[in-house]
């Protein structure tokens, strides 16, 4: 029986011993080694058979039948064992792969730990597979990772610069300019980026002096390149222009600055350099002999939070011969090969998008899951002009950004997945909403504090001489908050911040913008914030009816129940989208009950007349004080209002002045009053005066001058 004892030592599988791991990295590798060792078993049973035969004194023909029978059984077991091992390996690889995909940060630690743990791995296919899975966890490929290249002070600096630029923006001028350019495009006119882009930057608040210098520098740059260009664009020439324009990587600034700034300082971000290159190449192509011009097409390739100017070379049949990526090392793509996750837009389409009101939507050309995940860049950007292109689908991570991150040794950080983690605009991260809202709220209260005689923050208080006891018009503007994509807890955080009792006079109004996707209870919360006026924007879309119904439902329950926390319903200020169907206007007027309601159609492109149904709703409305703006009254309609003093009608200044010209007597009617909803400019005032009958001027001009003063007081610090 001694032989049997030896044979028992050849047992195929050792039972797994419990290790005393503590959940650390080496514990994982010890268990993985256990899986790796599973494969060493069946070999020993073959050795056992050999050992048994050798130790016997039988001739092969004597044990052959017995051996045959045993081998059939053992082979069957080997087969089963192989299947179990394969299953075990497949299972563990799947477990690891799934886990790595789900927990990238932990996977990073695991990989890092593997470098220091006394492992273990022998070069078997299985072990290599595990190593491959883990080693492929490169930081760049991890979802829920962010690159935060800016410190808080830098962010604040960006905010300051945005405000500084924003103070110079004239939206009316921009809109007029864009309309004019769009008209040209629609008439088939090819507009040049060289003629428009720096103009757009200036309209968006770029310093005019700087723009002037930039135009000069741009021209010098074009002339310099043109001198060595020849009669066509050679590959060598294209590369030299790109490399020279880019300069060193130290010139790259995260999402900061304009093309104006690039031409003056050489500092660049992907947008500013792309536009600069497009302008330079556009001008160079224009200087080529006519026969060579048509074969070039400029455009932009998009990557995640990055863009690259491209130059396509077309064949005579207009198909693409090759595409140069105008970014070092100037990669070339031949033919019409697609880059999934990196769509391109030609320059003409981009210019149309830039001049259009609504964004141009394009597909990323990538199916879900095709693109390896890459980190988001959380950076506050300051770029004057938006390309107004919205990309739908996943975008591939940018190798260029990856290189900058690596070179600058910027730490990639892990963060909790959030529903606001959409692919953001180019180099713009939107997930800063709570901070943005709190800043707006804080700003308004600081403004009020500075205007109060007992102001405590000496640095911010106004001096006694300039201090007016009356607090001027003050609004909290939350209209730019992306309520649609904001998680519930963040909405609550903003509401709580608004409701926080600051023992101070509250700002006059809170503008929430568009909140149409929020549920009823949240809309109720918004109404209950406890401010004298609340503003909502109602846009034409899928949810506008629900929002209106929610507001009216709350208004009704407020009127019916006296248990509400507020003594009065706040003045409701509804900014109505220009395309909003008329029946909503009527529905609101017919159903809203309360002291004050503002219906503002200020955005109407061309002022239309209120319809008969609307006029009927206006005069029959149960609201005590009705504020109106955005459309005109026909003669018949204004007569109806004059004859129905059942409420006070507050006309926005544009509406009031138009009617004052036609019916000067309204200044004597107490139920029709001017609603100061904007600053009255001296040219507007002069227009009204010029249109008045001469005999009426003497009595009306002092009234108009009073309105002018009040409008200035209301909107520009009445205390000064």
């Amino acid at each position: 029986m001694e032989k049997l004892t030896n044979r028992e030592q050849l047992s195929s599988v050792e039972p797994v011993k419990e290790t005393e791991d503590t959940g650390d990295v080496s514990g994982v590798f010890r268990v993985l080694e256990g899986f790796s060792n599973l494969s060493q078993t069946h070999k020993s049973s073959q050795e056992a058979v050999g050992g048994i035969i050798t130790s016997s004194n039988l001739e092969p023909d004597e044990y052959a039948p017995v051996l045959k029978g045993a081998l059939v059984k053992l082979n069957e077991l080997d087969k089963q064992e192989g299947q179990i091992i394969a299953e075990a390996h497949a299972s563990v690889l799947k477990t690891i792969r799934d886990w790595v995909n789900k927990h990238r940060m932990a996977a990073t630690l695991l990989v890092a730990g593997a470098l220091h743990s006394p492992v273990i791995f022998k070069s078997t296919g299985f072990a290599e597979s595990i190593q491959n899975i883990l080693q492929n966890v490169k930081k760049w490929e991890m979802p829920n990772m962010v690159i935060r290249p800016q410190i808080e002070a830098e962010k604040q600096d960006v905010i300051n610069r945005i405000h500084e630029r924003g103070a110079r923006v004239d939206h009316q001028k921009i809109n007029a300019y864009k309309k004019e350019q769009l008209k040209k495009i629609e008439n088939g006119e090819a507009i040049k980026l060289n003629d428009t882009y720096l103009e757009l930057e200036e309209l968006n608040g770029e310093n005019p002096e700087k723009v002037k210098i930039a135009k000069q520098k741009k021209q010098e740059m074009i002339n310099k390149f043109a001198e060595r260009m020849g009669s066509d664009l050679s590959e060598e020439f294209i590369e030299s222009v790109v490399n020279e324009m880019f300069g060193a990587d130290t010139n790259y600034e995260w999402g900061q600055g304009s093309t104006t700034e690039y031409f003056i300082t050489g500092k660049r971000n992907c947008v500013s350099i792309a536009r600069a290159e497009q302008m330079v190449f556009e001008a160079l192509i224009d200087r080529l002999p006519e026969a060579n011009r048509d074969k070039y097409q400029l455009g932009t390739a998009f990557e995640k939070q990055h863009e690259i100017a491209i130059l396509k070379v077309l064949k005579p049949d207009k198909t693409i011969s090759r595409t140069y990526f105008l970014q070092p090392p100037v990669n070339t793509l031949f033919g019409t090969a697609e880059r999934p996750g990196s769509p391109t837009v030609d320059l003409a389409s981009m210019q149309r998008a830039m001049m259009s009101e609504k964004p141009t939507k394009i597909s990323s050309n990538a199916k879900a899951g095709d693109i390896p995940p890459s980190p988001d860049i959380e950076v506050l950007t300051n770029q004057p002009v938006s390309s107004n292109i919205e990309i739908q689908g996943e975008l591939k991570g940018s190798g260029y950004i990856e290189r900058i991150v690596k070179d600058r040794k910027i730490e990639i950080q892990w963060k909790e997945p959030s529903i606001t983690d959409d692919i953001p605009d180019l180099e713009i991260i939107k997930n800063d909403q709570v901070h943005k809202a709190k800043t707006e709220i804080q700003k308004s209260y600081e403004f009020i504090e500075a205007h109060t005689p007992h102001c405590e923050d000496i640095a911010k208080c106004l001096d006694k001489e300039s201090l007016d006891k009356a607090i001027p018009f003050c609004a909290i503007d939350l209209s730019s908050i992306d309520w649609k994509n904001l998680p519930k807890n963040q909405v609550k955080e903003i509401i709580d911040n608004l409701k926080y009792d600051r023992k101070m006079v509250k700002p006059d109004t809170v503008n929430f913008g568009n909140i149409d996707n929020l549920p009823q209870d949240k809309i109720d919360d918004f109404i209950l914030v406890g401010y004298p006026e609340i503003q909502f924007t109602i846009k034409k879309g899928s949810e506008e009816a629900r929002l209106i119904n929610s507001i009216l439902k709350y208004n009704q329950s407020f009127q019916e129940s006296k248990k509400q926390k507020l003594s009065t319903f706040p003045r409701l200020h509804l900014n109505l989208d220009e395309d909003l169907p008329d029946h909503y206007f009527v529905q609101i007027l017919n159903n809203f009950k309360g002291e004050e309601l503002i219906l503002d159609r200020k955005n109407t492109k061309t002022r239309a007349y209120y319809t008969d149904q609307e006029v009927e709703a206006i005069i029959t409305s149960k609201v005590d004080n009705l504020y109106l703006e955005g459309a005109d009254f026909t003669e018949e309609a204004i007569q109806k209002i004059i004859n129905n003093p059942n409420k006070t009608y507050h006309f926005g200044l544009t509406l009031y002045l138009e009617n004052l010209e036609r019916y000067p007597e309204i200044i004597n009617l107490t139920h029709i009053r001017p609603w100061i909803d904007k600053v009255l400019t001296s040219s507007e005032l002069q227009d009204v005066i010029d249109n008045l009958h001469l005999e009426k001027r003497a009595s009306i001009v002092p009234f108009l001058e009073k309105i002018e003063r009040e409008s200035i007081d209301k909107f520009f610090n009445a205390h000064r």
Partner: protein
Amino acid sequence: MRNIKAKQEIQELLDSLKDDLQEYSRRLENLGIERREILRLFARRLEQLEVQKIQKRIKEQVYGKIDE
């Protein structure tokens, strides 16, 4: 905080892998028992054959060659 969370996640992986390893080891152990039994029977059978061979040789020495 991130490291604590990551450690918890590594622990979850470890627990999951250990469970799997136990399960596959148990199944292989069962096969091992079968294999040992087959080997034991094989060895036993060879011993019996050896015994038979020895008995046959002794018989032949005593009784002369036996035709089977």
